[in-house]
Each structure stands twice: as structure tokens, then as C-alpha cells.
């Protein structure tokens, strides 16, 4: 098994090292690192903006680049949270707790150095996990019939919406809304146009680009318009030679890194628990088992090492269910899956065998990308730190232009630009009502396949809904769903106590 894995990996490196692909991988991590550093731009918005540009590219290059943005942004986000105390990206919120005190003590460089080491270690483990686990999952998933696929998707949708931030009930509502938006357009089986209200342009459905850019571009900008505080770069002059941690620091940080990595890779396997939850869990664990828990929050190097390691191992592990089962765990993965679908590639267990270049090329590019990121981040740290002070007023107008022309270029259709604006305003209304729009995209991407498989399952079982509990694998998935819902009800009933616990944790 190891031999075939190595062979495949060798093949993957061949794909990823093609000059063309290498260039896009580099571009991806560069842009990712950049938006990670810039306060006010997230990886989701950036991937959405780049999405239309990938239409003309080869699928491999497109996916390498978009994936690079995702994990590149995690490196950049750490810089922002350690030096500025600005957790612009949710997974790094915990890193602030100890990272910024370290910066104030003049040890920001050391913290960044440890972060890079921890990130690389976490990422490497996550990639290894993917190499061995994904083919195994595929073997299992290839046996699935429509009923199993349906139940599995239900797990993915429920986990993605209930475990994400915000109220779980609202998360589920957003998922259902996403499923409804996925219905818009011509029904594949009967040719009936649904929810188009006589608008011809909607016959092909809502494009993922317009939906993503409306929700994560325009709506987000409306939300942060004139709300960003001025950035304080008082402590952030870090130089290259400050970045090498001492032996004592390394020793202190080593085991937290290992534990963070393992926790992160476990979190990655549970759909819906992305890097954010992984980093919180690992920080809490580290604080609990530490002999000197009182140092946490006042500049403990372990408090930087463990969440960063777990974030990165979870970020890489996130790709496992996406690439092997075709079930995205969070919104970024849904976008990547959308990019593949646009390229005409059907996601699911057959992806690895039908498009080995995409799968193994992607895995190899992870390593190349992570090495590139270390190179980008260590000697060039001074440059990234300077970028921290780019004001928001230059950022969002340029992004708005990219959104407009990107949506237009996707289909050379001005109608869709208007559609994006309308979705953006609607998205802002949702944000103001405390809905988090991320699950919409999850539902949107999975919706058509969910409906198709549900119809097929019903056709095969002659309309007998019992098929979902009679088939053991499907029943197991449904049991997980029940467990997820029961867990949420339990949390809701005990909410006051848990809220206190959570406050104590942070």
C-alpha cells in the first residue's frame, strides 16, 4: 500500500512540478498569503473573486491555485493575529491570545518563527493523512448506492450547518435556503423551469460565482464599511533574524505542536469541524495539561504553537472528504468543489481514479506550496509586515471592480453582475439578522446531487422511505444525523451553563 502511494505521489509531483502548474501554485499561495496578511479580506472572498478567472484554465492548474489561496491565507493570517492582535481569520483567534503578548514582550519574531515550524509540521501530517486515508475512503464509498449517498450528504449538510459558527437552527435554515437556490433553473429530469419567474437568464440556474461573490464579497463589504478600526503597527517591526527561536523555545513548543497536529487531523475528519474548532480545542487541551497553565494568555509559546499546528493539519485534512467523497466540509471546500464542477468534473469517489492528475497533483502541490510559503514567509517577513498597514479604503474598491468584471467575464453577461448585487444586498440583510451565509453555499453545491440521488433512491425502492434505515451504512449515517441534532438540543437546553464554560475557556 505504501508502495502504490509513493508511486502515485511521484506521479503527483510530476504533475505539480510542470512549469505551468507550478506557476499557478505559486500564484495561489502568494495571493493567499497576501490576503491572509491584509486585514479585511478573507480567503473565502478571495477564492470567490479568483473563481471566474479559473474558467479558462486547465482543471489541475485551477484547483492548485484555489487550494493554494486557502492554505496560504492561513500562514498570512497568523502574521496578522500575532503582530496586530487582529484575528481577521477565525482560526487564528486563539493565536492572538498568546501571540500578541509575545509581540508586546518583543518576542513577536520568535512567535512567528515557531508558527512557521508548527504550520509546516501540521500541514505535512495533514497531507500524509490524506494520502493514506482518501484512497481507503474511496474504496468504501464506491460501494454506495443512491440511498447511502443521500444519507451521507445529509450528514455533511447537517454537520456543516450546525457545527459552524452562530445558531445551529439558523445554520440549518441557511442550508435549506441554499438547497432552494440550487433548484433554480431547468430541472434535469423533466425540463421544467423552476423558480425562474419568467426570467430567461435564470434558466441555467444561479451561477456559483454570483452567489459566492454576492454573499462573501458585496455583503461582507457592506458589513465592514467604515467599521474597521485603524491598524496599530506599533509593535510590528520584525526582522528576518528575529525569527529563529531559541532551543529552549523549540523544546517548549515541540510537544504542543505534536498534540496540536494530531488533534487537528482528527477534527478534519469530522465534517463541519474545520480549522477554527480544531484550534480552539487544541488550545484548551494544551492549557489543561500544561504544568503552568497560568502562563497562557500572557505570552506562552505553547499557546501559539499548538493552535497553529492544529489549524494547518486540519486545513489540509479538510480536503479528504471533499476530494474522496465529494462532500465538502465547509464553505471553502464547497467553492473548490464548485470550481471542479464548472470544469466539467463530477465530484465523488470516482474522482481519484478518473482524474488522478487532479488528486495526486493537488497533494504534491500542497507540499510544494507549503515549502514555498516557508520561503515566502521567513526571509520576506519585513515585506508582509509592511503590507499590514495598507488601509481598507484601497482594498475594497479594487475588490469590487474584480467582482464586477469577474462575474461579467464568467459568461460575458451583464445580467449576472446585477444578480450579484441583488444577492449581495439580500446577503447583508441575512447578516444583520444574525444568519451566517456560509451554509448557503454548502446547500447550493450539494443540492442538485442530493435531489438527483434522492429521486433515484426512491425509484429503486419503489417509494419506500424505509430504504434509508434498512440499508446498514445508510442507517449509520442517519444515526449520526440524529446524534448531531440531539447534541444540539442538549446544548440548547443547557445553554446558560455552557456559555459560562466557554467564557472560562477563552
Amino acid at each position, binding site marked *: 500500500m505504501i508502495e502504490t502511494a509513493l508511486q502515485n505521489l511521484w506521479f503527483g509531483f510530476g504533475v505539480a512540478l510542470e512549469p505551468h502548474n507550478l506557476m499557478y501554485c505559486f500564484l495561489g499561495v502568494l495571493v493567499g498569503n497576501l490576503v491572509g496578511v491584509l486585514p479585511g479580506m478573507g480567503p473565502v472572498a478571495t477564492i470567490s473573486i479568483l473563481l471566474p478567472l479559473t474558467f479558462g484554465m486547465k482543471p489541475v492548474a485551477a484547483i492548485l491555485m484555489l487550494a493554494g489561496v486557502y492554505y496560504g491565507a492561513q500562514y498570512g493570517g497568523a502574521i496578522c493575529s500575532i503582530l496586530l492582535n487582529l484575528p481577521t481569520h477565525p482560526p487564528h483567534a486563539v493565536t492572538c491570545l498568546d501571540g500578541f503578548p509575545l509581540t508586546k514582550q518583543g518576542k513577536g519574531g520568535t512567535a512567528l518563527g515557531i508558527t512557521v515550524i508548527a504550520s509546516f509540521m501540521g500541514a505535512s501530517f495533514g497531507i500524509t493523512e490524506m494520502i493514506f486515508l482518501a484512497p481507503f475512503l474511496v474504496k468504501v464509498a464506491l460501494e454506495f448506492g443512491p440511498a447511502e449517498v443521500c444519507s451521507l450528504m445529509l450528514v455533511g449538510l447537517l454537520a456543516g450547518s450546525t457545527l459552524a459558527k452562530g445558531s445551529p437552527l439558523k445554520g440549518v435554515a441557511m442550508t435549506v435556503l441554499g438547497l432552494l437556490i440550487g433548484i433554480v433553473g431547468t430541472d434535469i429530469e423533466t425540463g421544467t423551469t423552476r423558480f425562474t419567474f419568467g426570467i430567461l437568464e435564470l434558466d441555467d440556474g444561479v451561477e456559483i460565482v454570483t452567489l459566492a461573490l454576492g454573499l462573501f464579497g458585496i455583503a461582507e463589504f457592506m458589513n465592514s464599511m467604515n467599521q474597521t478600526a485603524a491598524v496599530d503597527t506599533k509593535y510590528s517591526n520584525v526582522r528576518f533574524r528575529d525569527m529563529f527561536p531559541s532551543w529552549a523555545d523549540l523544546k517548549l513548543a515541540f510537544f504542543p505542536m505534536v498534540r496540536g497536529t494530531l488533534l487537528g487531523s482528527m477534527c478534519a475528519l469530522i465534517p463541519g469541524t474545520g480549522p477554527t474548532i480544531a484550534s480552539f480545542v487544541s488550545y484548551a487541551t494544551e492549557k489543561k495539561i500544561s504544568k503552568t497553565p497560568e502562563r497562557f494568555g500572557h505570552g506562552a509559546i505553547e499557546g501559539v504553537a499548538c493552535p497553529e499546528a492544529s489549524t494547518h493539519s486540519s486545513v489540509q485534512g479538510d480536503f479528504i472528504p471533499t476530494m474522496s467523497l465529494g462532500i465538502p466540509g465547509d464553505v471553502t471546500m464547497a467553492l473548490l468543489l464548485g470550481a471542479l464542477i464548472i470544469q466539467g468534473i463530477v465530484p465523488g469517489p470516482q474522482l481519484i481514479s478518473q482524474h488522478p492528475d487532479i488528486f495526486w497533483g493537488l497533494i504534491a502541490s500542497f507540499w510544494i506550496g507549503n515549502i514555498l510559503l516557508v520561503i515566502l514567509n521567513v526571509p520576506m517577513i519585513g515585506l508582509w509586515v509592511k503590507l499590514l498597514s495598507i488601509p481598507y479604503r484601497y482594498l475594497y474598491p479594487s475588490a469590487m*471592480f474584480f467582482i464586477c468584471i469577474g462575474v461579467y467575464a464568467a459568461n460575458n453577461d451583464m445580467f449576472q453582475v446585477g444578480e450579484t448585487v441583488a444577492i449581495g444586498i439580500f446577503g447583508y440583510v441575512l447578516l444583520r*439578522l444574525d444568519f451566517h451565509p456560509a451554509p448557503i453555499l454548502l446547500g447550493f453545491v450539494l443540492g442538485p446531487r442530493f435531489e438527483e440521488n434522492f429521486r433515484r433512491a426512491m425509484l429503486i425502492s419503489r417509494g419506500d422511505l424505509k430504504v434509508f434505515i434498512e440499508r446498514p451504512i445508510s442507517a449509520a449515517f442517519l444515526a449520526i444525523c440524529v446524534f448531531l441534532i440531539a447534541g444540539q438540543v442538549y446544548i440548547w437546553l443547557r445553554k446558560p451553563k455552557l456559555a459560562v464554560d466557554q467564557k472560562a475557556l477563552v
Partner: protein
Amino acid sequence: MIGTKKLAGDSALTTQSKMKRDYYAGALMMLIGLGAAVEGSSYHIGTLVRMGPGFFPVALGVILILLGLMIAGTAFASTEGGDERFLPGNPQWFGWLCLIGGPVLFIILGVYAGMIPAIFACVFVCALGDKTSTLKGALIMSAGVTVFGVLLFSYLLGVPLPLLRGITP
């Protein structure tokens, strides 16, 4: 500075009001669900064995109505305070207008005048929305982005939007 002001406003609100916003949230979901169910029922629904195109929309619509009821219901049952107002503490009407006006101008100018005026107007109008931006700064930035955008999208990526309508063939 603006950020801290906003935070202070929010925390003052949480102490005095109940979660009224969740009523709106639930109502909105019920409304969308109802719309989906009604519109969906105008398509052929079919049976479980042979589902028509209307089956899924109606089912999802009904689920969304129930979820909306539950959102409003849990807000009613909860004793916690919440933000009552729909608008944020410091509504940015001018900023929002600029942010939406930019893309709208992009559409209009893109159709009638070409890519160069469309990009310029879009960036310029969006930039005016920020309180800290100056007229000069916005002009310089719009010009820069326009040059960059034309080079990238028109020459490099070949987006078929004429640079200036009537002048370029």
C-alpha cells in the same frame, strides 16, 4: 476608533431589549419557505416513486417554514437579551449607496460606454464610500486600477468588452 464606538453601542443595547431581531429572522424564513412551497406546488409534484419537479421545492419550502417557526419560537423562549434593531448602531447609508452604486454604474457604463469608463466609475464611486478617503486619493487609485484592469482583462485575458464603445471596433 469607529470600531470601539460600535462595540459600546452594541453592548448597551443587549442589556435593554429582548431578541426581537430573531422574530424578523424567523418571519423572513417563513416567508421564503411559503413562497417556495406555493410556487413549487404549481409544478407537477408526483409521487414518492416518480417524483415530479415540484416535489423537492414543496418539501424544502415546508421545512423552511418549520425552521422559521422554530427560530422565532426559540427567541421567544430565550430569556437572553439581544440586539433589537435591524440596522447597525451607525448605519452607513452613504457608504452602502456608493458600494451598490459602483457595480450599478459598471453595468450601465459597461453596456453603453465600454470597459474603461465602467471600471473607472465603479472603483471611484466605491472608494467615495469610505469616510477616510479623499477625492484626490480616490481619483489616483481609480486611474491606477483602470490601467491595471484594462491590461489584465482586456489584453491578457481577452474579455470581450470593448474598451470604449463607438471608438474601438
